[in-house]
């Protein structure tokens, strides 16, 4: 498990250049997040954004509070089987709640990558595209039972 994490991180170094062009438009044959649809570098960038813009409400570990939803665990029940476009659109419209619409689409996608990693979805070699059609072609799979920590 650790090996692919490190490997993917190395592959993700070229993220900035690849952003927005790596994934093509949806083909109709949906990909699942189990295929590894983001890079470690994206998730790391997403983690930095999360720490700055999200953690004050959702908690440093995305653990949530009594009032604020956790972004792992139960998060999967709310968003599982939906598309990453739905999640990304939600972030774009509604988050952060105190200033909705202030995150760039690129940052939203980095946050999606961070959320995927946080929820146990493995990274891959290709970065997640900010293209809406591409995001709409990726389904948020259930976390493999063996990946639940």
């Amino acid at each position, binding site marked *: 498990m650790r090996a692919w994490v490190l490997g993917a991180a190395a592959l993700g170094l070229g993220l900035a250049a690849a952003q927005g062009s790596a994934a093509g438009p949806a083909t109709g044959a949906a990909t699942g997040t189990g295929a590894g649809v983001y890079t470690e570098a994206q998730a790391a960038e997403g983690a930095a954004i999360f720490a700055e813009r999200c953690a004050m409400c959702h908690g440093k570990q995305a653990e949530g509070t009594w009032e604020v939803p956790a972004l792992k665990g139960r998060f999967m029940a709310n968003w599982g089987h939906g598309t990453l476009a739905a999640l990304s659109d939600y972030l774009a419209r*509604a988050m952060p709640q105190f200033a909705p619409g202030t995150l760039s689409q690129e940052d939203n996608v980095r946050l999606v990558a961070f959320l995927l990693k946080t929820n146990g979805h493995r990274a891959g070699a290709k970065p997640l595209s900010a293209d809406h059609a591409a995001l709409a072609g990726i389904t948020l799979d259930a976390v493999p039972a063996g990946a639940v920590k």
Partner: protein
Amino acid sequence: MGVERQGYEGALGRRHVLRGGAAMAALGGLSACAGGRVASAPGPVNGPMVSAGNRPHLVPMRVSPDQLIDMKCCIRPLRAAGPNLGTQMVGDTLVVHNYGHGGSGWSLSWGSAEVAVGKALSVLPSEIAVVGCGIIGLTSAVVAQRAGLKVTIYARDIIQRTRTFRASGSFTPDSRVCLSEPAGPGFGDLWEQMARLSWKGFRSMLGLPGEPVVFADSYNVSDVPIVKHVEHPDPAIKGAWQPGGLPLQNSEFGKYGDRIKDIVPQSQPLSAEENPFAMPYATRVSQMHFNFPSYAHLLLTEFFQRGGLFVERDFNDPSQYGQLREKVVINATGYAARDLWRDNTVIPVRGQTGWLVPQREANYSVRFKNAMLMSKADGVVLMNNPVELGEMFGVGDSMELPDKGPLLEVLKIMEPVMAGLARRA
């Protein structure tokens, strides 16, 4: 008059317990009135006056920071036009909206549910769905069950974790419920219908185990004469709310409380003899409030006993309503409707409360300056609402994290009030 009597006897009742029958005897005589009587203050309602040494006794609340056990923040969903009780079709599914009650969701819950369930019933369903499990959703579900329907609630949270539980929980049926111009002249009648029906609903819950609904005395104390505040438009403020925007001043908010003052207790000035506080001016009102834990328990118990189902799930698009098994859905999503239904007429109005360890022996509320303490079964509620900002306080603010500073300030403001009570005790 009957209203004042209720509050007065409530206070006396506690003193009577504490000090024995001598207190009643002490009600006779004494015409001395210390300074500070509020202009036009009526005499004691039940004839005899109270001696200065036997005024209603209140237990001082402990207002030290170590008693602070919780802080809650929430967003009231204000809609300029008032709550959305409209209907729309999503595919072959009838959606009946029931959201956007501002700071009046608790207070209008029974009446608003009656309206929404009535619309749902008109298509003769045998089962319906309710989306949302705050006070509006859960009450709608129970009202639908009482009408014979099978009900499933779909919600991402059960009531104890919704914004409903972050209210302060007193009967405030026209708090940020609408803006009067966009709501239009017809809204007052609908509001009154909902408020009166809700009042009856709450009356039916008084005295139940756990005290889901109670009355308690609420005092307003001051070192200057208390005058009833009437909102007038500020001529310096040009313009008013526009679609997609925010109200600009207090006078834009719809106020309808006078319509139900025949049943809802109104504030009464207290004479010096009746004033339990070491403050020159005071008013008292019998205020209805809701104890969240027992209220939620009661509603959930009825919901499940009637065979209700609860499904934890989120929605991220209105089209998903059309995919539910039930073909009639009551949408009770509160502030979340702003995003889910892309309803940008929902205006966030931030509010926050602090909570002290429950102090059941101090069973009253008191306001002084911007500070408010309200003693409830699940704690003493702290609020710090700048009087001069009124309904505008928090408008447009969707930051839902509590800010401790203003809550600690409440404790500071209340220190001399409670010290004065302690001296009098």
